[in-house]
C-alpha cells in the first residue's frame, strides 16, 4: 500500500459542545490538501487531532488511518499517547504558525536543525552537522555571497519571517516526517515571502510526502493547488479540486470566502475629492534604523476623508512612518505639521494583533466603562456605534479572548471612534483576520471616511487591498522611496 492518511467521520468535542462535526478526508502523496476557513471554523483542531496534540479537555472521535508504505495501516486515535508522541518528527511533521516564535531564540538555526539528526535520529555530531547544513542548503538557506555571520550560524532574531519558515521546513526534512502538516504557514508574511514559502511547500509535497495545509490565505491555496476543503463552524462544506473550487464554488459560503479576497473586491467608488483641506503634513521626513536608511526626504500630506496607504515589503519601515506621522516616534530629519486645533487624542491607532491591544482579564464592558469615565461619551453613542459596526451589545460582557479576532478588531475600532478621531492609523489591522472579517472591517473603515471625513492611514503589505482602498499610496522599498 502506498502512503496515505484517511480521516473517517472525525468529530471533536469539548464536553457536550461539538466543535468539529463528522469530517472525512483522504490525503494522498502528490496531491496537496488545503483546508480553508475563518478562525474558529475548526480547521486547526483537525490538524491537532491528526498530530495528537489537542488541548486538554477536547476529545476526538472517529478514525484516522495512517498508511505508511510497507507497513500495516494504524488507527491513530486508538494509539496510547506515548506511541502517538513517538510519531512526532519521525512521521508527523508540524510546521508551526509564526515560526519566528517557534524557533529557540538562544540557538543558531544550524544547531536547531542539527539536533534533529543528533537527538531524534541518533547520528554522530559531525554527521548531524553536515546533514543539517545540507538540509538548510535544500531550502535555499545558504550564503550566495560570504556573509558574517553565515546564515546557518545566525540566531532566529537575525532572520526574516520567511527564512524562519524555511528553517522550520528544513527541520521537518531532517526528521524525515512523511506527513507534513502546515499550520497557517504564511501568517504575517508579505507577498514575496509568501510565494517563496508556497514554492518550498510544493517542492516538499512533490516527493513521497503528504501535505496538509491550514490557511485562510486564498493566494496560498491557489498556489498549492491539489484539493481544497472549505470549513465553517466545524463542518466541512465542500472538498473539490483547487481549480474548480476557485473558479466555480458550489457552496454559498465558499463563494463569499472567495469574494472576500482583496483581489476580487468590487472597486470602491472614491468618496474623497481634493478640497485643498489639510490635516497633517510630513515635510522632508527621514528615519534611520540600525545604520540603515528607511526613508529620507519624504513629503506627505493627509486630507480629511482621504485614505492614504503606506505599503512595501516586511521590515521596510511602514509602521515606523505611520508612528512618526502620529507623533509616537520622532523623525531623524524633517517635521510633522498638524493643522491648528488637531490634538493628539484625535490621532488614534488600530493595532495588528487585536488580543494584545486589550487587557486580557477585563471584560470589554469594564474597558468601555473606564473609557467613558475618562472621556465622557454617552451610553447612546456607544450603543449606536456598536450597531453601526455590527456588534451585538451582549458581546461586551465577555473577555477579549472570548470573541473572534474580527469582532475584537471592530471593538478596537469602536474604542478609537468614541474619542472622535480625525486621523486613524490602521497598522496591518486586518492582516491576522480571515478574509471575510477583513473585508467587513475594511468596508466599515471606508464608509466611515466617507461619512465622517475621517482621514485613514492604512499600513499594509497587501498590494491588492491597497489598490482597492487607497486614494493615495506611499510605497516604501528596501532602498529609497517612490511616492
Amino acid at each position, binding site marked *: 500500500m502506498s502512503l496515505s492518511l484517511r480521516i473517517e467521520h472525525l468529530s471533536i468535542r469539548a464536553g457536550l459542545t461539538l466543535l468539529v462535526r463528522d469530517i472525512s478526508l483522504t490525503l494522498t502523496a502528490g496531491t496537496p490538501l488545503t483546508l480553508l476557513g475563518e478562525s474558529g471554523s475548526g480547521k486547526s483542531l483537525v490538524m491537532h487531532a491528526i*498530530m495528537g*496534540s489537542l488541548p486538554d479537555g477536547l476529545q476526538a472521535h472517529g478514525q484516522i488511518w495512517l498508511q505508511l508504505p510497507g507497513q500495516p495501516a494504524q488507527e491513530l486515535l486508538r494509539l496510547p499517547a506515548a506511541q502517538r*508522541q513517538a510519531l*512526532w*518528527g*519521525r512521521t508527523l*511533521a*508540524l510546521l*508551526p504558525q*509564526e*515560526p519566528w*516564535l*517557534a*524557533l*529557540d*531564540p*538562544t*540557538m543558531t538555526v544550524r544547531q536547531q536543525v542539527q*539536533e*534533529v539528526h543528533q*537527538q*531524534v535520529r541518533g547520528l554522530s555530531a559531525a554527521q548531524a552537522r553536515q546533514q543539517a547544513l545540507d538540509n538548510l542548503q535544500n531550502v535555499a538557506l545558504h550564503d550566495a555571497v560570504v556573509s558574517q555571520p553565515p546564515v546557518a550560524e545566525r*540566531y532566529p*532574531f537575525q532572520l526574516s519571517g520567511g527564512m524562519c519558515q524555511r528553517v*522550520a521546513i528544513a*527541520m*521537518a526534512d531532517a*526528521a524525515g516526517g512523511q506527513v507534513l502538516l502546515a499550520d497557517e504557514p504564511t501568517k504575517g508574511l508579505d507577498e514575496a515571502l509568501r510565494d517563496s514559502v508556497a514554492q518550498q511547500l510544493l517542492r516538499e509535497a512533490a516527493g513521497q510526502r503528504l501535505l496538509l495545509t491550514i490557511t485562510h490565505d486564498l493566494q496560498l491555496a491557489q498556489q498549492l493547488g491539489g484539493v481544497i476543503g472549505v470549513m465553517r463552524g466545524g463542518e466541512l462544506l465542500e472538498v473539490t479540486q483547487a481549480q474548480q473550487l476557485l473558479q466555480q464554488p458550489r457552496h454559498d459560503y465558499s463563494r463569499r470566502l472567495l469574494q472576500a479576497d482583496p483581489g476580487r473586491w468590487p472597486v470602491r467608488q472614491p468618496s474623497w475629492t481634493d478640497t485643498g483641506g489639510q490635516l497633517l503634513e510630513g515635510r522632508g521626513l527621514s528615519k534611520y534604523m540600525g545604520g540603515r536608511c528607511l526613508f529620507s526626504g519624504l513629503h506627505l500630506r493627509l486630507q480629511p476623508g482621504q485614505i492614504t496607504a503606506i505599503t512595501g515589503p516586511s521590515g521596510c519601515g511602514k509602521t515606523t512612518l505611520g508612528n512618526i506621522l502620529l507623533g509616537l516616534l520622532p523623525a531623524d530629519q524633517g517635521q510633522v505639521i498638524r493643522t491648528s486645533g488637531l490634538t493628539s487624542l484625535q490621532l488614534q491607532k488600530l493595532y495588528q494583533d487585536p488580543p494584545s491591544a486589550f487587557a486580557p482579564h477585563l471584560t470589554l464592558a469594564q474597558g468601555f466603562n473606564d473609557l467613558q469615565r475618562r472621556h465622557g461619551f454617552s451610553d447612546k453613542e456607544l450603543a449606536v456605534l456598536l450597531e453601526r459596526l455590527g456588534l451585538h451589545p451582549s458581546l461586551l460582557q465577555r473577555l477579549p479572548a472570548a470573541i473572534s479576532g474580527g469582532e475584537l478588531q471592530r471593538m478596537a475600532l469602536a474604542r478609537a471612534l468614541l474619542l472622535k478621531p480625525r486621523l486613524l492609523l490602521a497598522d496591518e489591522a486586518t492582516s491576522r483576520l480571515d478574509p471575510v472579517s477583513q473585508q467587513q472591517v475594511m468596508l466599515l473603515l471606508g464608509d466611515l471616511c466617507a461619512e465622517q471625513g475621517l482621514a485613514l492611514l492604512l499600513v499594509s503589505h497587501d498590494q491588492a487591498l491597497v489598490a482597492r482602498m487607497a486614494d493615495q499610496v506611499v510605497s516604501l522599498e528596501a532602498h529609497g522611496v517612490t511616492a
Partner: protein
Amino acid sequence: MLRSSLWGTVLLGRALQAVLVSLLVGSLCFALMHSLPGDPAMRIAAGRYGPDAMSLQAAESVRQELGLEQPLLQQYGRALWQLAQFDLGHSLVTGRPILEELQVQLGHSLWLALASLLLSLLGIPLGIIAGARAGGWLDRGSQALAIGVRALPPFVLGLLLMWLFSIQLGWLPPAGFGSWQHLLLPALTLALGLAALSCRVSRDAMAEVQQSAYFTFARHKGLRGLTLIQRHGLRNAAIPVVAYLGVQAVYLIEGVVVVESIFAYPGIGHAMVHAIIARDVPMVQGTVLTLGLLFVLINLLIDAACRWIDPRQGGTR
C-alpha cells in the same frame, strides 16, 4: 564593531555608577565627620596615638597635617581628591590604614558571600522541577516553603538556625571564626533567603518556557524528556534567573552586614557595624564604599553573564 561598542556602553554605564557611588559615599562621610560634636583633630589624634598619648600638640600637628583649619569647601575638595587616589585614610580606632583593614575583612566576607551564593544555587533545580510540573504538589510545597523562609528577616533566621544546630543539636559552633564549621551557619542563613527567591523565579521561568511556542515546536519535532528540557528549557529559563541575581545582590550585601554581626564573623559588615558604633567615620566610609562598589561589580558580572546566555542581548559566544 557593533558588539564591541555595545560592551563599551555597558562598561561605561557601570563605571559611571561606580564613580557616583564613590562620590555619594565620600560626600556623606565628609558631612558626617564634620557634624559630629567635638574637635575632629582631637578625635583623629586620639585614634592614632591612643587616648593616653594624646596631647594638644599632637592634635595641633594632626590639624596642620590634614589641613583641618582650612575652609570647609577646600577640605571637601581635598577629601574627594584623596578618595580619587584610593587614599582612604586611617582608622580612628586602631590607627591602621583603612585599606589594610579592608583587605583582610573583605576576604572573609567574600568567602561568606561565595559560600552562601553556592548553597543558594540549590533553590534553582528545585524551582526548575517545580516549574516543569507547575501546579503539582512539589510546586505548591516549595512555594509555601519559599514564602515562609523569605518572610523571615535574616536576623530571625540566623537565630533560629543557631538555636537548632548549635544549642539543640550541638553540631556547629554558634559563632566565631577559624574553620569551615564557622562559615556554615552564617552562609546557610543567607543562602536560605536567596534560594527561596531563586527557586520561585526559576519556577516561573521554567513554567513560562514550557508554555512557549518554541518549546512546543521542539516537542513536535521529536525531542522528548530530559533532552528537550536540557536543550530548550534550561538556557531559556536561565535568562530571567540570572538577571534576577542582580536584584538578589542587594539582599546578599544587606544580609552580610546583619549575619556577620549575629555570628561575630570578622567580615566587612561586622567591621562596618563596629565602626558606626565607635564613630570611626573613615572606617565607615571604607566599608560602605567597598560594599557599594561590590554591588556595582556583581551587576557588571551579571550583565556579562546575561549577554553570554542570550544572543539577543548582543553578546559573543
